[in-house]
């Protein structure tokens, strides 16, 4: 086999065998780039295609609207709006859940079952759909069923409009509307406490007094129709019936959260692979430069024998392409494997009925090609320096390396430090580009860690601000409909309640200049004690006598400052429009919020002193009594228990934390080892002769190794601040990229993040230095004395 290969190819194979460790280190860096690309793009495509297929198969609506109560006859008017393909009228209301294995009351979204050919079709996972005449049969969302171990036949109770009804599960289903199932008032999914329950429409109509009426409307648009135009006309039609503004898919909660997640995924797959490919390119450059320097005479000889410059260039380019292909292969396998894992992780977190794995060959082809191009780019400089030299010049030894004194002749600091350190410093400074790229490479390793680990501290801060300092209530009890102020006393008298604080929520459209957003405007007491509004300085704000406080994100979107006036169009009641001054900007990371004093908001709404619910703090010893009372309260619409959800969220996060730390640590270690090991090998190759000479002069092995290690240490130390800075940049870019109207993440990078990032990289560098110790010990003392370099 070898006999049939050309001599240059045989040389190539032998070079690869001889330099296998360096080649592998480079290939692994490339593999990491390919893997992250395939992983990111693959998972993104898988989820995107899965979602599209799911939406299509189950006829997911394009526009969503809710009303208090509207006659079914309105459906015809809506269907006549230009661009509307299909309209589905249904009933959707919140109910309190009373589940045997759960002390606290949960919240159910009660939805009428879609008819045949209706929109938002359900995907049946187990059992059957409820029979048309069976008023107590329901289908429930899979996440909820799983959280309680429900299978068809199981029973639980719901409190609909104050009436308790025991229902029987016949089917377990998934809905494209609840891929991300967030309960009312919740900030993170908790499918134990939030379930979606589908039952026959007439059963719901009877319970909610909606005979011949609907409360929720879905629209499927004709291809090419404008959602904005349809929404505008729809809002006009629904306004009289308590319509609070329709939303398109992009604002549909589940869809929007999924989008945010997909965007993050895409952002990661745009940041990481280029880093690895850049590092790989410069590793190729570094290694090949050394190789051609060592083989200069052979190259001259080959040229003297009649090989042209292109043949020589091709030989070295083939060498790096083989390495690139090795890296691409490892990366493709790892990426494909990890991609499936990641997509499955997402599929578990989001409720998809199936998962379409995207294994489009183009992603693999493109990443292999990109890797090969990066490798060749890295090789260009090294190859071009020798392939075109005249043979006679190439065969002569290269001109000796010129060193310079560190500070010219004016001042000689070398008397102050040991000569071995002078050697280290001069060698590093003699090859500034290489030193700089090594520093940058190791810096990248640090930055990958800083750029990923910060998020945990930031999420902690988000939690701290949101739940420990702003929302300090134990529970938020929302009424099904706004009730007179007196309802607060009923809440205050529930068992276990220590403090109850009223709030009022109104759907409004808030705008300034051309920009407007549909949000929930919250009214609170002037100086709330439980659910507080925090200023940008993190202190509690006093709600003003007039004016509105906007959350930072909303103020930015509307481009307003304190003192500016915003237009508030109330989307309920008599739909007033008023101009009010912005009296403050509040801190907040979740959603777009606006706050007013309760009485001011009530005046604006013109319905008298009404409240939407109460924030409650309760005696932990009387929790079950409180829960019982809630379940027995007819007016209760839903109960949010932020702190309970928070615990579950933390548990999920802790799990993800370890997965993430493992992945990013591995990635960073691959870069660090790749760079440090290659830099050390090249340094050893260049200075092997000097180091062996030092051994002859009586330097111990440890002293000689120390020289090489000092050089590596200098690179690694210099790389730390650079890596921190780049990592901070990554984090900042990510924070900006992630910021959506649903949530934004504060950028908090504590010293621990920098410390962990540096420790991991230093450990990786240390490990690669140890790998080299054997080679240093094997330095041939006699050989170096016999040969001129």
């Amino acid at each position, binding site marked *: 086999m070898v006999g049939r290969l050309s001599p240059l190819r045989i040389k190539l194979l032998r070079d690869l065998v001889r330099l296998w460790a360096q080649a592998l280190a480079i290939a692994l860096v490339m593999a990491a780039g390919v893997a992250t690309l395939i992983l990111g793009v693959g998972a993104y495509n898988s989820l995107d295609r899965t979602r599209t297929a799911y939406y299509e198969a189950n006829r997911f609506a394009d526009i969503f609207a809710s009303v208090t109560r509207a006659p079914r006859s309105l459906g015809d008017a809506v269907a006549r709006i230009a661009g509307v393909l299909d309209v589905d009228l249904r009933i959707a209301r919140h109910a309190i859940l009373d589940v045997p294995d759960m002390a606290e009351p949960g919240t159910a979204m009660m939805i009428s079952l879609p008819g045949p050919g209706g929109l938002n079709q359900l995907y049946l996972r187990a059992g059957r759909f409820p029979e048309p005449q069976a008023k107590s049969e329901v289908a429930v969302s899979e996440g909820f069923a799983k959280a309680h171990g429900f299978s068809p036949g199981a029973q639980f109770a719901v409190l609909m409009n104050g009436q308790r009804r025991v229902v029987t599960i016949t089917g377990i289903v998934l809905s494209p509307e609840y891929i991300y199932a967030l309960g009312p008032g919740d900030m993170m999914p908790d499918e134990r406490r939030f379930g979606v329950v589908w039952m026959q429409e007439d059963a719901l109509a009877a319970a909610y007094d909606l005979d011949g009426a609907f409360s929720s409307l879905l629209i499927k648009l004709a291809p090419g129709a404008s959602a904005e135009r349809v929404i505008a006309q729809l809002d006009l039609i629904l306004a009289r019936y308590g319509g609070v503004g329709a939303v398109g898919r992009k604002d549909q909660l589940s869809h929007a959260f999924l989008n945010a997640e997909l965007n993050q995924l895409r952002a990661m797959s745009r940041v990481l692979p280029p880093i690895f490919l850049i590092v790989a390119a410069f590793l190729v450059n570094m290694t090949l430069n050394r190789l051609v320097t060592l083989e200069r005479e052979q190259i001259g000889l080959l040229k003297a024998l009649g090989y042209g410059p292109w043949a020589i260039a091709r030989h070295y380019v083939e060498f790096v392409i083989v390495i690139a292909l090795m890296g691409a292969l490892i990366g493709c396998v790892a990426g494909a494997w990890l991609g499936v894992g990641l997509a499955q992780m997402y599929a578990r977190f989001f409720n998809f009925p199936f998962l379409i794995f995207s294994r489009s060959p183009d992603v693999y082809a493109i990443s292999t090609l990109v890797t090969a191009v990066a490798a060749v780019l890295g090789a260009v400089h090294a190859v071009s320096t020798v392939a075109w030299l005249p043979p006679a010049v190439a065969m002569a030894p290269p001109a000796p390396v010129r*060193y310079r004194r560190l500070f010219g002749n004016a001042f000689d600091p070398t008397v102050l430090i040991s*000569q071995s350190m002078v050697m280290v410093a001069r060698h590093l400074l*003699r090859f500034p580009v290489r030193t700089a790229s090594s520093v940058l490479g190791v810096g990248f390793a640090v930055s990958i860690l800083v750029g990923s680990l910060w998020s945990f501290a930031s999420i902690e801060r988000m939690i701290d601000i949101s739940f420990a300092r702003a929302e300090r209530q134990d529970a938020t009890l929302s009424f099904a409909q706004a009730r007179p102020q007196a309802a607060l006393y009923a809440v205050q008298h529930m068992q276990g309640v220590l403090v109850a604080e009223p709030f009022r929520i109104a759907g409004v459209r808030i705008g300034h200049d051309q920009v407007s957003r549909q949000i929930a405007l919250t009214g609170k007491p002037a100086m709330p004690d439980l659910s507080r509004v925090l200023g940008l300085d993190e202190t509690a704000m006093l709600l003003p006598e007039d004016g509105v406080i906007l959350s930072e994100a909303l103020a930015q979107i509307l481009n307003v400052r304190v003192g500016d006036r915003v237009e508030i169009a109330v989307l309920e009641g008599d739909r007033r429009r008023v101009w009010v001054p912005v009296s403050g900007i509040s801190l907040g990371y979740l959603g777009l919020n606006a706050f007013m004093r309760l009485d001011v908001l009530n005046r604006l709404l013109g319905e008298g002193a009404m409240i939407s619910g109460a924030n409650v703090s309760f005696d932990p010893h009387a929790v079950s009594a409180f829960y019982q009372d809630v379940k027995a309260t007819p007016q209760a619409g839903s109960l949010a228990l932020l702190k309970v959800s928070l615990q579950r969220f933390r548990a999920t996060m802790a799990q993800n934390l370890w997965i993430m730390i493992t992945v990013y640590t591995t990635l960073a270690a691959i870069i660090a080892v790749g760079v440090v090991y290659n830099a050390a090998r090249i340094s050893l190759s260049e200075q092997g002769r000097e180091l062996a000479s030092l051994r002859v*002069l*009586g330097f111990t092995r440890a002293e000689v190794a120390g020289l090489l290690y000092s050089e590596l240490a200098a690179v690694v130390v210099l790389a730390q601040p650079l890596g921190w800075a780049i990592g901070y940049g990554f984090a900042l870019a990510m924070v900006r990229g992630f910021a959506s109207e649903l949530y934004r993440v504060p950028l908090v990078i504590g010293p621990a993040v920098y410390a962990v990032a540096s420790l991991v990289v230093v450990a990786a560098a240390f490990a690669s230095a140890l790998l080299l110790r054997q080679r240093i010990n094997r330095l041939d003392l006699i050989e170096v004395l*016999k040969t001129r370099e």
Partner: protein
Amino acid sequence: MAEGNAQGGKTEAFGAEVFRVRGLTKTYHSGEVEVQALRGVDFSARAGEFVVILGPSGSGKSTFLNLVGGLDSATSGQAWFLDHELTALTDAGLTRYRRDHVGFVFQFYNLVPSLTARENVRLVTEIARRPMRPEDALAMVGLQDRMDHFPAQLSGGEQQRVAIARAIAKNPEVLLCDEPTGALDSQTGIKVLQALLAVNDAVGATTLVITHNVAIADIAHRVVRFANGGIVGDAVNPTRKKAEEVSW
């Protein structure tokens, strides 16, 4: 070999016996081939002696120098430096020996290219037990004016003199030179030999110089000839020439 012992008696003008070698053998294994580089060499040298070792390539003279210099270990036999048995030392022991007692000069100078002449010397004085000032060592070889030049800025002869300065700056008991003029032309080579003689005179280090250049033998106290891995001749020069009197 008996000749070597007999000649030993005539070097009593010198100090104590510095090197004592008995039955030193070195066998190299390269693949399946076994090469006997040294076949039972006996040798001794006294303090302050200047010995030239002659022999063709492959005669074993470099192997011998490597063994007494502590750069390699013998297959069998014994070698003593004063009261240290070199053949019994570990790698760490040999390193210690080279560091404290031996100065080396090689054909290709083996200077550190990133250090100036002065710094190359300082590299050794930093780790030596009783060093001289680097400047003094360089002055001794006539390089007081080129101390701040890098090796690349010096001629071959100058580089070799830096190597000599580096070798003697630790005040070594022995100075081992392997073809110190091998890479130099005759005129430059003579300057290097002058430096070696001056140093031998001033420091009193036992000096072993390996060469295949017969002309150099005339400057030695004693000439040892190697062939086929053994010593075939050991003679004291009745009269020594000065360095500038030899030529090749």
